[in-house]
Structures are given as C-alpha cells and as structure tokens.
C-alpha cells in the first residue's frame, strides 16, 4: 500500500506540491516567528539577568503619614486635628544594618556575589548644561561580579572608578546628551549640596536605553560623600549561582528585616506578562496557519478519495480490506506531513540563520554586533515539526476513514 500511496502522490504532482507548500509555509512561519520572538526574549532576559542584579535588597521608602505622627506626638489623645495634615518621608532611605545582611549573604551557599550600593538622584552639569541622572555608588571589584557591566565599558576599565577619588563612568547616551567626553571633568550635585567635580574615566553602552541615558557609576565612598551620608547603603545587588533560585531566595529573605527583597523576574513582572501575550499571539497565528495548511490537506485528500472511488472499489474486490484503504490515504497525509515538516524545518533554519546575520540597526534590539538576535532553541524546531505533523494527521484521518467506509458494490453500482 505504501507503494501505491507514493505512486499516487507522485502522479498528482501539482496537488502534492501545493499541499506540501502549505505545510512548509506553516512550519517556516512557526520557526521564524518563534525564532525572532524568542530570540528577542532571550536577548532581553539576558539583559535583565546580566546587566542587572538577579536579586535586589532595597531599603524601603518609609512614608510618614498623619496617623503615624499623631500617635507618635500625642499617644494619649484619641482624635488629633491638624491644621495642615502632615505627610512626609524619612530623609534618607537606607539599609539599617547592612553588616547583618553581609553576614547572611556570605553564609548563603546559593550566592555567587553581592555588591552593596548607594543609589542617589543627581544633577550633572557640564558647561551650563544640566541633566538629572542616577548615581550608583559601588565597590567596583564587587559590582563586576554581580553584573556584566564591565563588558560594555569603553574608554577605560570599570575598576578605574575606584583607582582614585571622584571618578565616574557614564552611560553613552548620557555622555552624548551632556556633550562631554571621556577624561573631561563634570560637576555633580545631589541637589542639596554644592556641586563636586568628577572625572569621566569611561563610558558604557548596554543597549538598554534606560540605563545608557540615565546612569552614572562611581565608587561607593564617593557617592556616600556626595550624598553626605557616610556609611550609608540603600541597596545590595546579588548574583546567584543558579538563576532559577532567584524567586526562592527572595522569598526566603523577605522574612528578614525591613528591607524589600525582589528577584529580577518579580521586578520585571510586566515583561513576563508581555511574553505571555506574545506566546498567545504566536500560538494563535501558528494555529491559523496550520489550520489553513491542514484544510489544504483535508480538501485535497477528500477530493482524491472521491476521484478514486472506482479504484477503492476494485481494491476491495481484489481482497484489500477497509483498513488497507484507510492506510492508503492516511499514509499519504503522513508522508506529506513529514516531508513538509522536514523541509519546513530545514528552510526555517536557513531563514533564521540568514536573519541572524542581517544587520539590524543598533537600538535596543541591536546586540554588540548589531544583528538581529534569533533563537535557535531545538524546542522551536521540535514543536514546529510536531505541530505540522499533527495537523497533517488530523487532516488525513477523516478522508481516509470516509474512504474506508465505502463498499465496493455501492461504487460499482453507481458507476454503471
């Protein structure tokens, strides 16, 4: 029967090729769309995971509101009426007892590295141009082990910020906005104090606009000095040995102290919602494409079964059973599915290879090489093949069964 199935497939070349084209297109579409979407996602997650710490321990911004003040100042009075209801927050958010955290972090086997930071809002001034930004005071040797920042530094080394006092590295975009250059001196103030001069020892470009346009790295002690808060730390950035432990770790630590502990995926929860929507759209699109391809197979096989009624009758009369007839048509769908799926996978792979080499103009999508990131996860290919194969099988089962139900006598009678 396989022999006959192949003969029939070959003898109706046009239909076979058209059906194949449908399956191939469906498979390619799945692979390319998935490749680009997941490639973007991999790139994006890579950025999230590596450019930033995997777990952040941050001091809470404590809001001091009216009831809190009322009970603090007038503990005995039940109803306190204020002329102007007060509301404020503590002047400096900070981790109250960082040494406790350091000890905990040093003893936790899941931790690869951690880096205490002081993050503070600043105003950068360069020849009358003033731009606000964020200064992250770090211990460079520690910070280097927590994020991949040093890979993105131009004009110097990341550790240069610790090589002397008042040295900084700026995001490339920020540097351009200021019109400043590496080795120049700019003035930084925290808004409350007189500006202090800092020397630019390098710039960095991570591709994440939010970082590149806004962030300044300096040494922790310089930042504490600028902020007039010696010894203060308001964040500890942590890198784990295994990224999948991030959530667990953050849940464990949540129990300690006043600090807010957030893993990278919690911090970026909204992105994961976008990914979910992307996945839904991707699968919907693929389902549509495969349904069209599946309908193609179904239609053609149905037509073939109708055309081949006479031959079904004669096959039955020479001793081929219903199951042989079902097999005859089913195998054609399966062959189309496998062939279309395989070709689709190959062409899809080729197309993805090509796409991954197409220059893709910088921007947040551009990698260091400036090309599109395409995912080559084997799962994409397995899934694409499986989906097109399943679609072909479903589409072939019905016509094949219909053919099996035909009895020779009905066909022969209707012919004469």
């Amino acid at each position, binding site marked *: 029967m396989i022999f006959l199935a192949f003969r029939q497939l070959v003898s109706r070349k046009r239909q076979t090729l058209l059906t194949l084209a449908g399956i191939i297109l469906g498979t390619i579409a799945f692979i390319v769309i998935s490749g680009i979407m997941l490639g973007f996602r991999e790139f994006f997650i890579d950025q999230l995971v590596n450019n930033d710490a995997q777990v952040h321990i941050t001091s809470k911004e404590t809001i001091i509101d009216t009831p809190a003040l009322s009970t603090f100042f007038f503990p005995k009075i039940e109803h306190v009426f204020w002329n102007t209801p007060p509301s404020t927050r503590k002047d400096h958010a900070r981790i109250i007892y960082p040494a406790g955290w350091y000890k905990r972090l040093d003893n936790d086997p899941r931790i690869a590295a951690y880096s205490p930071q002081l993050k503070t809002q600043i105003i950068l001034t360069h020849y009358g141009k003033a731009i606000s930004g964020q200064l992250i005071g770090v211990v460079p040797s520690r910070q280097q082990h927590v994020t991949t920042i040093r890979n993105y530094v131009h004009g110097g080394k990341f550790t240069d910020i610790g090589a002397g006092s008042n040295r900084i590295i700026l995001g490339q975009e920020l540097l351009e906005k200021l019109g400043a250059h590496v080795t120049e001196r700019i003035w930084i103030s925290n808004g409350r104090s007189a500006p202090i001069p800092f020397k630019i020892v390098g710039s960095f470009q991570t591709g994440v606009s939010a970082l590149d346009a806004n962030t300044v790295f300096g040494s922790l002690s310089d930042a504490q000095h600028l902020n007039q808060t010696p010894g203060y730390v308001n964040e500890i950035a942590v890198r784990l040995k295994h990224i999948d432990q991030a959530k667990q770790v953050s849940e464990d630590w949540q129990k300690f102290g006043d600090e807010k502990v957030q893993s990278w995926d919690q911090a970026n929860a909204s992105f994961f919602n976008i990914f979910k929507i992307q996945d839904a759209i991707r699968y919907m699109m693929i389902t549509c494409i495969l349904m069209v391809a599946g309908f193609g197979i179904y239609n053609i096989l149905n037509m073939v079964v109708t055309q081949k009624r006479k031959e079904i009758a*004669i096959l*039955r009369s020479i001793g081929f059973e219903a199951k042989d007839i079902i097999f005859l048509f089913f195998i054609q769908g399966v062959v189309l599915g496998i062939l279309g799926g395989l070709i689709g996978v190959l062409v899809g792979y080729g197309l993805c290879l090509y796409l991954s080499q197409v220059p893709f103009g910088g921007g947040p999508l551009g990698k260091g090489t400036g090309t599109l990131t395409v995912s080559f996860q084997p799962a994409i290919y397995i899934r694409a093949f499986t989906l097109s194969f399943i679609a072909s099988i479903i589409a072939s089962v019905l016509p094949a069964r219909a053919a099996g139900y035909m009895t020779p006598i009905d066909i022969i009678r209707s012919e004469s």
Partner: protein
Amino acid sequence: MSILLENVNKFFNTPPTQVLTDITCDIKLGEFVSLVGRSGSGKSTLLYIMSSLDTATSGSIKIAGDEISTFSQKKLHQFRNEHMGFVFQFHYLLPELTAEENILMPARKKGLHHKKRDYAHHLLEEFQIKHKFDRLPKQLSGGEQQRVSIARALIMEPSYLFTDEPTGNLDSANGEIVMTIFKKLNLEKKTTIVMVTHDPDFANIATRQIYLSDGKIT
C-alpha cells in the same frame, strides 16, 4: 466447490423495490454460466450477491459448503483475493500504475508480487500485449485495458471468475478476443465463470444460461 444459492431475496429500501425474488440456483465447479435477461432484471445484483460483494436481504449463499454471511471481513477479503477474480464493464485499472503493476496488485496484497511476475508476463503474452507491460492504462486502447484487467483478475489463479458485461464497452473484435480468453480459461484451467451479458451470441458461448426476468429465474 460449487456455489449454492437458496431462497435468496434482495430488497432495496430507497425506493422500496424487490430486485430478486426467491432465487435458488447451483453453479457447479468448472461451469461457464451466463446470466441473461433484460436490463433492470437484477442480473448484476445477483452476480454481486453470489460473489460476496453484496449481501442478500434473506436466503443463504454457500461457497464450497461454507455460508458466506458467516465469514469475517478478513476472511472474506482473503477468500476474494485467493479464489475470486472480477472483471467489470469498466476496467478500473489504477491510473498511476503500469499494466504489469496493475496485474500484480492482488498478489501484492499477499506479498507475492515478485513470485507472480513471471505468471503476469505469461498472461500478458497470452493476451498479446506482452510488449505493453510497462505502459500506463491511459497509454493502452480500450481492448488492451480490458485484457489487462482480466489478467489482474486471473493473477492469483482463482477458482471463480465473476464478470459483469465484460464486453459492454468494447467493439465486437475486442469483445471476441475477451470471449475467446474466457472460453479457453474455462476449458484449460477449469475456472468457474459466471458472466452477466445481454449479448445473445456471447451468452451462447457459456455452457449454461440462467434467464432472469423481474428478479426471478425463468
């Protein structure tokens, strides 16, 4: 190994018609029987019932003593494959296959298509179409197509050959050729042949004629 029909009735529901009424007949081994009668008298229906392609509404059909209705589908198809050959008015050749491959289809069911090749060529030679063995059906004339379909019916060397108007689509010269083949087959191989025809000359070639009129044997 005779075919025995007893009180066979065939009733169609749409539209309600009694096509065969109380048919009792016996087709002995080695006989060449022709079924004759006017168009619509039920010849084809009778042929298909006695050859297991169709089922009777009531009555019994025994082949070599076994009641056909008790056969499983598998056994029925196997029996057809080994013991029965069919030739219809139309050749019903598979258009994708060459003459030789078409002839060998019944053998292929049992994986005998290599063994039976020589016999297929022998049949082709006997039917004077040996040199056309690798042609597709559409590259053959009507007479040649019918001869290929006869060869296909004979490849398993069946005990019975059932044929419904085998010459219905052929000119008289080709009709003669087909009839000569049947006669020779019956004489030399002792194949039991049941043939439906409304050509009186061809009917006369048979050793016995069964007349049907309005679904009854007369």
